[in-house]
């Protein structure tokens, strides 16, 4: 069964292979594994891992709670700082955050497995349906949250906890944002993103309205007129163009669409993939698309990145993962034009690049990579719409240290703001902190809501 024929086809593999290929990348540690892993934590003072965590989870404490047989208490320690600690345990680039800071690296070059321990504790609590937070007495204040991704969910949860009524608007069919649509399937199996959404919403006081898009169905002004405060937590809906000839040919695909389609597909065999695939880009999206193309049965998958290995946004761990799945990563190559044959992609012409006087420049030397399918993964952009006079910089929303925008009573966080790395965990921290700031404002009754016309 399966097919190796050229072109873009579904069902390249036998059914069992899909099952294996898209199973959990790092299954949850069992109880014994968790104890052994937890025993390695030194319970550092003012621990570097905790400092490295954008949500400042008390890592030494939660690991010690695991080692003393209290995974439920451990989960609460995690959720106190990060209500999406379950997803962060799956998708955080721990190798550049907490685990990079782990002091075990100094003497042994092997950190405590913080991410997997966090997954263990949060999984135990969520499986047992343990909820740790209750709403405070209702304040009668209403807050609008735009975007049901990590930033929006984190802020909504914290706002609801403080007794405010929250309405979350999301453009997509399902809540979760990138957690639902933008993460490789093998990192979050068993519909975990939706389970986590349910877990977060279980606190009550949060209404999610799907299919409503800012700028299309409502404006920021509508929200400020009707709510006491607004949190903007949108993602990056725009995909950067290749700016190469042939970009619109059939077979040239946005990597984010491919990733989302795979996540939503009940049957992975239904997703077609090329025999030869070229991915243009150097970030996590490029890796996720390339690896999954390979897992779908593509014979040859090549990532072309226009700079060097050290410049790639994808972490070394992700690069190694791609290599282990048989993805070839090539550096210092930029796309020149997509080559067509019979109206369909047949290859891509690339040009070698180099740094010349601090500027990336094509060398003039070109070559052709045969390809049935080309994925664009050269970055996403914020598509601002319906924001009125909100101050922007570099295409993103400007916020202060508390997440306040230029418009009174409007806060923002997540990928749409110009602050922090574009990571799930950073978005959670921004959403949570903005919610705290909103709560302080509402509690003080400092400013009545005003409409921005």
């Amino acid at each position, binding site marked *: 069964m399966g097919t190796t024929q050229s072109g873009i086809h579904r069902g390249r593999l036998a059914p069992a292979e899909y099952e294996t290929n898209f199973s959990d990348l790092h299954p949850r540690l069992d109880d014994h594994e968790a104890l052994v892993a937890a025993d390695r934590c030194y319970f*550092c*003072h*003012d*621990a570097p891992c905790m400092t490295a965590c954008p949500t400042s989870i008390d890592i030494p404490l939660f690991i010690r709670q695991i080692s003393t047989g209290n995974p439920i208490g451990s989960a609460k320690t995690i959720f106190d700082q990060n209500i999406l600690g379950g997803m962060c345990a799956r998708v955080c680039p721990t190798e550049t955050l907490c685990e990079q800071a782990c002091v*075990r690296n100094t003497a042994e070059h092997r950190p405590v497995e913080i991410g997997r321990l966090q997954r263990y504790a949060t999984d135990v609590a969520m499986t047992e349906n343990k909820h740790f937070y209750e709403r405070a007495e209702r304040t009668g204040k209403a807050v609008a949250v735009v975007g049901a991704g990590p930033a929006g969910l984190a802020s909504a949860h914290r706002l609801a906890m403080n007794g405010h009524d929250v309405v979350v608007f999301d453009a997509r069919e399902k809540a979760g944002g990138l957690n639902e649509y933008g993460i490789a399937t093998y990192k979050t199996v068993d519909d975990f993103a939706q389970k986590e959404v349910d877990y977060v919403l279980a606190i009550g006081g949060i209404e999610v309205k799907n299919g409503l898009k800012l700028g299309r169905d409502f404006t920021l002004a509508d929200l400020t007129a009707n709510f006491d405060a607004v949190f903007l937590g949108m993602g990056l809906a725009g995909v950067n163009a290749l700016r190469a000839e042939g970009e619109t040919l059939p077979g040239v695909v946005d990597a984010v669409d491919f990733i989302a389609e795979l996540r939503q597909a009940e049957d992975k065999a239904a997703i077609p993939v090329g025999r030869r695939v070229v991915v243009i880009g150097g970030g996590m999206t490029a890796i996720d698309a390339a690896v999954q193309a390979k897992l779908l049965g593509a014979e040859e998958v090549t990532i072309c990145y226009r700079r060097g290995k050290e410049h790639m946004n994808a972490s070394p761990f992700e690069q190694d993962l791609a290599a282990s799945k048989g993805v070839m990563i090539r550096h210092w190559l930029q796309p020149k034009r997509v080559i067509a044959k019979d109206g369909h992609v047949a290859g891509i012409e690339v040009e070698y690049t180099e740094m010349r006087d601090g500027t990336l420049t094509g060398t003039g030397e070109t070559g052709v990579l045969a390809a049935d399918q080309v994925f664009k993964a050269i970055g996403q952009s914020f598509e601002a719409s319906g924001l009125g006079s909100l101050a922007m910089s570099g295409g993103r929303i400007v916020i202060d240290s508390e997440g306040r925008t230029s418009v009174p009573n409007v806060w923002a966080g997540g990928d749409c703001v110009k602050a922090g790395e574009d990571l799930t965990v950073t978005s959670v921290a921004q959403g949570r902190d903005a919610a705290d700031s909103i709560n302080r404002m509402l509690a003080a009754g400092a400013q009545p809501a005003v409409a921005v016309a």
Partner: protein
Amino acid sequence: MADLRNNFVGIKSPNPFWLASAPPTDKAYNVERAFKAGWGGVVWKTLGEEGPPVVNVNGPRYGAIWGADRRLLGLNNIELITDRDLYTNLREMKQVKMNWPDRALIASIMVPCEEESWKAILPLVEETGADGIELNFGCPHGMSERGMGAAVGQVPEYIEMVVRWCKQYTRMPVITKLTPNITDIRKPARAAKAGGTDAVSLINTINSIVSVDLDSFAPNPTVGGKGTHGGYCGPAVKPIALNMVAEIARDPETHGLPISGIGGITTWRDAAEFLVLGAGNVQVCTAAMTYGFKIVQEMITGLSDWMDAKGHRDLDDICGRAVPNVTDWQYLNLNYIAKAHIDQDACIKCGRCHIACEDTSHQAITQFVDGLRHFEVMEDECVGCNLCVNVCPVENCITMVGLEPGVLDQRTGKPVDPNYANWTTHPNNPMAKQAAE
């Protein structure tokens, strides 16, 4: 190659590692395996008097505490003496001794505190060809409720009396095993010596409740809903045993009395520590019960290699070498001053030295220097207590460095006095002895 041959009160064994009287030495099958693995001797599990044997519980007999990675640190048991028929044991002992003439075979004995009981069993044991006997005056559970074991060991007069009987009724060397469940270990040791014992062995196990089941609210091990105190052994008891061995070794009344050291010996290094503190050989149980008999091979090679590296030819070269260096607190040199030193290349920046010192000691270790996470000893605050050394997870990262005489101690602002001076002459001591006029 160092000569590890052991001659303990005339009992010869190819090495100083004996298995203590305990489950590993309960029958020929186990002892044969032990000798094959290389053990120098065994003390056969304690024999009781003729007649129906004791019975053990049929539920759990052991409890434990663990360190990281579930490494067993302390074991507790509520098992009694052998629950096999006396004659079965004697027959097997005789056969094993015939099979292994070069190994030491000692019979541990516990019978009621009556002369006739001891007089009856000693010839039976002697007939097996055993090399010696060990009097079990230590077992802290079960048997002590019946007036034996620790119930004898806690009364020096009884010890002396029974030892005297044994010396009277057998030609075999007598080793008196002492219980640590007593205030001053020197008292039973002196009594044993007064009775004419050839040696003492210590320590037996320590009264203990190892843990409590928080669901059933019963001590572990739990037998049908109840628990009882057991005897504690394993690595956790080693420090207690070392002190008691040293106390006997340096007591003028018992100095020179042969000691078989027991208590948490797990590695060659543990064994060497007992030997240099005055033990003539060592007995092991928990380490074997944790890892199997093969661990003796690590002990033999480790001790031999260390002796070779240090130029010690045989056990006589090392036995008791540390005894002169064990003293009373009052004789410690108060003019000796040491400061902790952190090797910055080895430091992994966990901060445990800092927080231990900051929260619980002398506020003598930095956390930040020039805004960077950096742990360094402030010599003007360091009292040289050694806590940081002990909490540091990296071996040899923090060391204590003694200040040379004449060097300024930044904490006191005074130079280090080159002269020895202790508490007995210290001006703050109201009992200080004045120098003669």
